Each structure stands twice: as structure tokens, then as C-alpha cells.
């Protein structure tokens, strides 16, 4: 063995102590009861109506948010790619900038805007329009998710789009394709890796969040993340919380496998 390989020792220690052992510990808690005896009850409890409903709602809202982000970000990426503005880098910067701001502050801002006596309703009231009552509903949570995670969809899609060789697109036009055909046969397939990593980066945090649903859902929208968090901070049933986390991990793995299937090139760029 090459002595140089020893340099990776500290890193491997962090992987072992900070990733592998904790995954083992969470699996241990998830598969035991309070006395430490083996049980699968924590896993099976996902089937109880309360938990199943939360999981389904999480999957639904995460899916809706991801689709909305994709529908907003893809045309945006196309426009930015085609724009002949001299300050293209600056334009992209404007769309990415909110990503660097603390996401709790950004979520809080929507609470301020959407509240019953919030800014939006004050403006609507002043011009004689009916009040918007979406705070503490799933719609507000979706809005928050889209707002928080949209830049994570814009960045990889834009990066994939600008990498497409202009000649390929021109060749398609020369060969008689119309805009729709170019879009569906050339641009979308070539930007697929970007779309895939964007979808992953929006779907996973949306599926597992508890902060967004807590702030904008006002305790009325219970996602699987909220249920798990409550097991650790209020109910103190760690075994159940760990078991539900394992179930959630399975769903993350399944959805990523599904997403990866669309990525024919298999090179989703994570960052």
C-alpha cells in the first residue's frame, strides 16, 4: 500500500463517525423498542392513518412544488440562454442571489406577507379586493417551498442549457425542424442532466421539510417531517421517530432511483 493513501485517514474517520455510525445508530433505534428489544412496529406505524396521511401529503406537496419549480425555471433558463444582454452573468446572479439568504428569513417573509392582517391583505383591502386566505393551508406551504427552492432548480437547468452547442440547434433548424421539435428533440434531451439534478434538489428538501410547513402551515399542515420532528422535540419517542425516518429514507431512495432513470446520460451535476 502506498503511504500517501494514509492522508485520507482523517477524512475516513469523519465519514465513519459522522455518517456510517450514525446511520447504523438510527437503524438500531428504528428497529428496537424502548427496552432495546427488536421490533418492526416503528416501521409499520407508517400505515396508521395519521402517519400515512402525512406521508401522502408530503409526497403530494413535494411533487406539486417540484413541477411548479420546473415549469417556472425551464422557460426562464431558455430566456436567459437566448438573451443577448451584455450582462448575462449579472442577470443570472439576480435569480440566484436569494439562494444565499437564510431560508428561514425568506420563509418568515412569506408569513408576514400572507397573514390575515398581513401586507398582501392590507393592499388588497385598500383597493377593495377580497382578502387572500391561504396562510395555514397546504397552498401556503407549496408557495413557500417553491419560493425557497426555485433557485436550486434555476441554477442546474441554466448551466445545462448554456452548455448546449449552438451548432446542434442550428443544424436541427437547417434540417427542417420547427421550434417545438427542436425543443423536444434537441434542447430538452440535452439539458436532461440539469433537469434531473434540479428536480432532486427541489424534491428531497420539499419531501422532508418541517420548518416551511411549521411556519406557513401554522401547525395545521402536518407533513412527515413534522411528525418525525415532534417525536424528538415534544413526544420524545425516539424509536418511533427513527423508524419513520427510515421509511422516509426508503422513499427518498425510491424517488431518486425513479429520477435517475430519466437521466440517460447518468451524469447529473450535483452542484
Amino acid at each position, binding site marked *: 500500500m502506498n503511504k500517501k493513501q494514509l492522508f*485520507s485517514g482523517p*477524512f475516513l474517520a469523519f465519514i465513519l463517525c459522522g*455518517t456510517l455510525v450514525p446511520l447504523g445508530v438510527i437503524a438500531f433505534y428504528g428497529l428496537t423498542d424502548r427496552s432495546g428489544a427488536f421490533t418492526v412496529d416503528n416501521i409499520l406505524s407508517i400505515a396508521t392513518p395519521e402517519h400515512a396521511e402525512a406521508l401522502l401529503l408530503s409526497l403530494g406537496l413535494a411533487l406539486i412544488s417540484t413541477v411548479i419549480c420546473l415549469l417556472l425555471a425551464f422557460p426562464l433558463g431558455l430566456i436567459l440562454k437566448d438573451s443577448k444582454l451584455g450582462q448575462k452573468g449579472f442577470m443570472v446572479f*439576480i435569480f440566484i442571489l436569494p439562494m444565499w*439568504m*437564510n431560508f428561514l428569513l425568506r420563509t418568515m417573509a412569506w408569513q408576514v406577507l400572507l*397573514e390575515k392582517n398581513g401586507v398582501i391583505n392590507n393592499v388588497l383591502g385598500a383597493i377593495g379586493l377580497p382578502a387572500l386566505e391561504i396562510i395555514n393551508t397546504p397552498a401556503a406551504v407549496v408557495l413557500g417551498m417553491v419560493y425557497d427552492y426555485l433557485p436550486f432548480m434555476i441554477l442546474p437547468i441554466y448551466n445545462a442549457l448554456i452548455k448546449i452547442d449552438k451548432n446542434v440547434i442550428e443544424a436541427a433548424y437547417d434540417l427542417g425542424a420547427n421550434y417545438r421539435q427542436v425543443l423536444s428533440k434537441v434542447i430538452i434531451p440535452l439539458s436532461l442532466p440539469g433537469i434531473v439534478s434540479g428536480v432532486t434538489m427541489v424534491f428531497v428538501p420539499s419531501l422532508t421539510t418541517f420548518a416551511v410547513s411549521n*411556519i406557513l402551515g401554522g401547525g395545521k399542515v402536518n407533513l412527515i417531517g413534522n411528525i418525525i420532528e415532534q417525536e424528538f422535540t415534544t413526544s420524545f419517542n425516539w424509536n418511533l*421517530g427513527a423508524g419513520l425516518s427510515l421509511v*422516509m429514507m426508503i422513499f427518498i431512495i425510491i424517488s431518486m432511483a425513479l429520477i435517475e432513470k430519466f437521466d440517460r446520460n447518468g451524469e447529473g451535476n450535483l452542484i
Partner: protein
Amino acid sequence: MKKTFKGLYLALIVFFLYLPIFTLMVLSFNEGKTMNAWVGFSLKWYEEMFNNRQIMEALGNTFTIAFWSATIATIVGTIACIGINAMGEKKKSIIMGLNNIPLLNADIVIGISLMLTFLMFGISLNYGTVLFSHITFCLPYVILSVMPKFKQLQNLTYEAALDLGATPVYAFFKVVLPDIMPGIISGFLLAFTMSVDDFVITHFTRGAGINTISTLIYSQVKVGIRPTLYALSTVIFVIVLVVLIAINIMSNKKKEKNI
């Protein structure tokens, strides 16, 4: 027609992205306590914010944790890349696979699993546990930023340095380090921002007394938002804006130089 539609689309998304941020900005200068009416211009929420011990402590914690975790992760990660680079293909791909686990895993699972591990081994949650957790999730970003630079590196220059009588350490600092520096810097910046932005992992691994900006905001939003948070939000936005513009200008200048 098509052009105006495109412009309108861009404008709408910019409006959507910035409306909440600018609303908080305007409200932070409002003298009144509620968000319903504009009472008058005032800087009192800024004064209250800077005098608020909790907020200042949380700000301090956020940046010291980010600085130390990014620094340690950058050093450990860069050294690790030397080792990984010396490995065979099979070993390398196994390690890169392990490196991907924290990147793909959900924050809530990372946070809970670390918390359970600390408590299982009798480690009480405090500043140190938060720091350790942050180093753990920052490391993969450093590895992913530095590893590609090693691949581009030409081993010949390093060997030439050795042939010319340099010690391996001297050759590393004189020949290898300058070449991989851009990767190290971007890894550090990425790790730093990930650490500053983290809420979920800190939420589970912090002890009762430790707050970062994120955990402080979360606990305050639950009991009722005070305008001091609007002031905090504005200050953070301005800091982020200035830092990012400075980084952009610096990297642009560097590019010009290289050309």
C-alpha cells in the same frame, strides 16, 4: 411582441423572488410595531437589534461555527484528496460513493442520526457537537471541489521538482498547492455558505444554550415575529449582496489577468 413577453416573464419572476425580501426591508424602517400601517421612518429596530444580546450571540455563533467548520473541512478534505488520488480506481470509487451519502441524504435524517449517536455515546449536545456535525456535512463539498483539480494536475511538474532536489513537502507547497488553489477556495466558500445556511442539522445537534441565526429565527417565529428580525434580515441581505459582488469582481479581474 415575443420580446415583451419574455421581458415580462423575467420581471414577474424577479418580482416574485424579491417581493418578500424588499417587504421586510421596508418594514424594518417602520416606526410602528405592526406591519399594518406605516407610522414613520425610524432606525429604532436596528438599534434594538444591535443591543439584543441573543441576536448578537447567535450571529457570533453562526460565523464562528461556519469559519471553523469550513476551515477544518477544507484542510481535512484537501489532505484527503492527496490520499484518494494515490488510490486505485476501485478504492477511489468506493470512497467517492461514501462521500456522496451526506450530499444525497435528507438533512433531517443527518441531524437525527447524529443527535442519536452523540447521546448514545454519552456526549452532551453543545457547541462542539454542532461544529463536528457541520464539518461532517461540509467535507463532501470540499472533496467535490478539490478532487477535479487533482485530476487536471500534471504529475510531471511535481516529479520534476523532486528530481531537482525539492523535498516532497516543499514540492507540494511550491508546485501542487498553487495549481489546486482555485478548488480549495471554492470548496471553502461552498462549505462556509452551507454551514451559515444550515438550520435542520443545527436544530437537532445543538444543546439548549446554543443558538445560530437559523435556530433563533425558528424559535422566534413560533412565538411571534418582532420587527428586530426585519432589521436582521435587511442587514444579512446587504452583507450577502456586498460579499457576492466583491467575489464576482475579484474573480472577473483574475480572469482578465489570465487572458
